[in-house]
């Protein structure tokens, strides 16, 4: 067994040398797309370049990305959900206390991040992550008993993100001629709508990945 490890290390080191040498050869001048991306910024509907790339120039990538997250949740469900969170364990005094302070703060900053995305670094993924964290905190500190919401709404929440994105992409075709091309002047509003729905779906997906159970999402 030892020899294999050494052999692998030698090969990997060789690989490192080749990789380093190749990385060394990457031209350090910016032959990137940023000049074009920044030039197109005015008619992309947002001021921040990364959000423009994520939700306008390469919106199709983001759509696929959300589908990947959905696939992970469907995967967790198909594999039989990880060990269920003990919903009825007693929580002790500390967690609920902290939660009552932290939860509003988390929700507030999630919404702020969402709004920030228009002209600063932020957007649906960052706020989705915060929402997911808030969900887990709420779940851990909540009083024992089942989820407050019915399974159907959980499913809608999960699917709404990528469905709205997809439907917007399809419904704009008659107006702008191609898939996912926002008609002139409506880019900002559409992007905002998509950001909100995405944030909600991503938060829910992350929550389900952590604490999902059959009873939560499957129909009775």
């Amino acid at each position: 067994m030892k020899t294999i490890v050494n052999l692998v290390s030698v090969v990997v080191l060789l690989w490192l040398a080749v990789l380093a040498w190749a990385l060394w050869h990457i031209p350090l001048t910016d032959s990137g797309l940023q000049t074009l991306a920044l030039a197109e910024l005015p008619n992309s509907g947002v001021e921040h370049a990364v959000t423009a790339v994520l939700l306008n120039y390469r919106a199709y990538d983001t759509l696929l990305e959300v589908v990947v997250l959905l696939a992970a949740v469907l995967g967790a469900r198909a594999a039989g959900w990880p060990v269920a969170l003990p919903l009825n364990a007693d929580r002790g005094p500390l967690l609920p206390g902290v939660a009552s302070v932290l939860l509003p703060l988390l929700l507030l900053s999630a919404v702020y991040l969402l709004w920030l995305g228009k002209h600063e670094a932020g957007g649906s993924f960052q706020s989705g992550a915060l929402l997911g964290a808030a969900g887990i905190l709420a779940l851990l500190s909540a009083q024992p008993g089942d989820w407050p919401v019915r399974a159907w709404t959980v499913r809608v929440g999960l699917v709404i993100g990528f469905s709205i994105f997809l439907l917007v992409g399809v419904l704009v075709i008659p107006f702008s001629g191609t898939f996912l091309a926002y008609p002139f002047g409506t880019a900002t509003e559409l992007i905002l709508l998509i950001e909100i729905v995405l944030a909600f779906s991503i938060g829910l997906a992350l929550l389900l990945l952590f604490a999902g159970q059959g009873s939560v999402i499957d129909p009775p």
Partner: protein
Amino acid sequence: MSTVAIYLLTGGLLFVIGLHGLIVRRSLLRKILALNIMDSGVFMVLLSLAARSDPPDPVPQAMVLTGIVVAVSATALALVLLVIAPSRYTDEHDPNA
């Protein structure tokens, strides 16, 4: 040796360290960790590409954002499968596996 080149090389180094860990380590959890190290390695390469120009190039940054979400989903799925897999399959008990 501008700072961009340094980050590029460290990105490559992280990738290779992760690769070594993935191949050598037998325990599945450590393999997943190794994969995450490789992820961060590639993202560092991408970000250093973005940093080559003064207003940093937004396209690699968007690629990194997307890459992070994909990496999170893949790792989450791997961990879910790991937790569900009957324990006699995953050799967690062996620390140096």
